[in-house]
């Protein structure tokens, strides 16, 4: 390291002592650090899954920004140069590179959502077809397919896929969501009878899930909340402390406004 003439003999001895002991202690120190590093890393930096999720979220933000700029400049949603299409490819590449992670579920859903937004329904369906029925992304993807089918008023693909998922998916949450969306599709089609059957199946087969709770509400709506049926009665106190009973409004036209300050 340093030329030896710069050391006195004592200095050289001291140097030897230092290097020997330092090397030994440094070795120990390095070993301790090495062992502690994974623990320290876990405490100070986010887990890989979180980091990947942040990365995908950043991609979504960027994609949104570019889409806004494009439409501000006069670009149309179905334009072949729309940045959404570039991002579909980016999200899909991410999907293929990182199979089976929570961030990949988000990336997959985003790719298909962008295709729906760009009205590329046949490409959306073709990409959805490449997903194995056990893919965890299905819980979200089956929703994208529902939105697309509502938009096009063509429910055949959604119904076929959702039926296949209720048969073959392993995750009960995906089966429940698929069955729920079958109900939504029939309801939108105007077939309340088939819709009710699907919602009731969700209630019976997947109890204690949020889908069962929503499905129960929909069954009740199909049964009791149709135009011409008497509105459900309720007695509450207003925020000013006055009693309010819906029954007291008889003879008046009433608007119930469900809202929130958020």
């Amino acid at each position, binding site marked *: 390291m340093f030329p030896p003439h710069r050391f006195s003999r004592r200095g050289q001895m001291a140097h030897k002592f230092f290097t020997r002991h330092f090397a030994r202690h440094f070795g120990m120190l390095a070993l301790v650090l090495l062992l502690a590093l994974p623990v320290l890393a876990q405490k100070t930096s986010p887990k890989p899954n979180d980091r990947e999720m942040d990365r995908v979220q950043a991609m979504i933000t960027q994609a949104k920004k570019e889409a806004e700029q494009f439409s501000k400049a006069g670009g149309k949603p179905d334009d072949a140069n729309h940045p959404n299409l570039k991002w579909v490819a980016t999200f899909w590449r991410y999907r293929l590179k990182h199979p089976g992670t929570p961030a990949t579920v988000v990336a997959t859903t985003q790719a298909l959502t962008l295709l729906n937004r760009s009205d590329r329904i046949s490409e959306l369906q073709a990409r959805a077809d490449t997903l194995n029925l056990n893919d965890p992304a299905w819980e979200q993807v089956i929703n994208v397919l529902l939105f697309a089918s509502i938009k096009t008023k063509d429910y055949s693909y959604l119904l076929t896929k959702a039926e296949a998922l209720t048969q073959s998916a392993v995750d009960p949450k995906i089966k429940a969501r698929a069955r729920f969306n079958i109900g939504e599709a029939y309801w939108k089609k105007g077939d309340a009878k088939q819709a009710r059957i699907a919602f009731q199946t969700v209630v019976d087969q997947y109890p204690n899930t949020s889908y069962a709770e929503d499905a129960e509400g929909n069954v009740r709506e199909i049964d009791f909340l149709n135009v011409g049926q008497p509105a459900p009665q309720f007695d509450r106190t*207003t925020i000013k402390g006055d009693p309010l009973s819906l029954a007291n409004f008889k003879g008046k036209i009433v608007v*119930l406004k*469900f809202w929130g300050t958020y």
Partner: protein
Amino acid sequence: MVGISLDEDLKPLQEMVTSKGISWPQVWDGDETVRKLFNVKGTPSYYLLDRDGKIAAKDLPSFKKLSGAIDDLLKKP
């Protein structure tokens, strides 16, 4: 008009009702009982009830749609 607020907290609701001078009665539905009773899935959402307390219109996502439905109802005897 009856307002049914699905706010989680009462305070922002009280503040907005005061600051905007909202005159119609407000019910705070923090426990979601009224929301569930009418199976409301999002806000804002309107139900229109006729003079007999029957549902005249629902799934009205905008004030414009609502006022059209009110006009129709007022034309009826």
